[in-house]
């Protein structure tokens, strides 16, 4: 009886690992226009305070968003407004964190090339532009990774 239970448990664990490997992870990329003045989108209201503290701008509007299922060790390319692109290569999981290589490209030029470990279901940001107060507007790219 005990052996059967252990075998069933191991099978379940193996199946869930296999399912996780097969499903990969979901990546959400949201491009946000930040400006000194103007309204903010309602969907960004919960994040507005955090964005203000991080980037200094006051107004945040979504200009593009995309959600895509990515398989492990396969590079996915997301188009970003302004002719840029974001390449995400999910590498695996470690301690509830998703390991990824993230590259922000401007044509063929690499603006950012990084290896990160982002907490599962967490969001990290990439900003392009001048710091607030020095220019009118910047582009904020919100990258959310969720392993299944």
């Amino acid at each position, binding site marked *: 009886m005990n052996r059967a239970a252990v075998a069933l448990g191991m099978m379940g664990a193996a199946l869930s690992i296999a399912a996780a490997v097969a499903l990969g992870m979901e990546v959400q990329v949201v491009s946000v226009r930040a400006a000194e003045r103007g309204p903010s989108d309602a969907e960004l209201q919960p994040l507005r305070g*955090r964005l203000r503290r991080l980037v200094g701008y006051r107004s945040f509007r979504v200009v593009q968003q995309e959600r895509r299922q990515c398989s492990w060790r396969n590079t996915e390319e997301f188009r970003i407004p302004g002719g840029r692109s974001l390449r995400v290569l999910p590498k695996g999981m470690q301690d509830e964190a998703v390991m990824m290589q993230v590259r922000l490209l401007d044509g063929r030029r690499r603006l950012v090339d990084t290896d*990160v470990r982002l907490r599962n279901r967490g969001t990290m940001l990439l900003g392009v532009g001048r710091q607030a107060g020095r220019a009118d507007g910047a582009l904020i790219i919100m990258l959310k990774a969720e392993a299944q």
Partner: protein
Amino acid sequence: MTCADVERLVDAFADAELPAPTLLAVARHAAGCSTCDESVRGLQELHESVTRVVRAEVDALDLADVWPAVAAAADRVDARRSWSRRARAVPAAAAGALAVAAAAVFWLQSARVAPPRDPTPAHRTLSNQAFIDRLAGKDLRLRREPRSGTTIIWVNATSGGLAR
């Protein structure tokens, strides 16, 4: 537009979150009403001072708690080391007695030291915590919000918005 309307809208007005016609209406009313004008100006000043404080806090991050803790730990280690140095400098004949005394002092000192506190905030897992293992690029800045751990990699481009 009445004073009551302005009072209701003044916060959104200060943040420039109102539609253009409403912004204009509030501004027009405030231009002709000293009470509302004072209220709007006061709130704008408050917002600006809050922004300054928040920026200063973000720049300072939470290192203020880290360094005193490191300094206190270093003091404790230094204090323990000083006892062992003194023991080595004493002639061999007195070494045994001093070693016993030093051990007693060391034990007493250790007993008096408060138990270590919880690990620093860096050990807590935050909802958006990100560890940057490698980062390459030109003119980059890394900022982190302490509360959620949200990390931003900032590319300082001359034209950063939507157009290149």
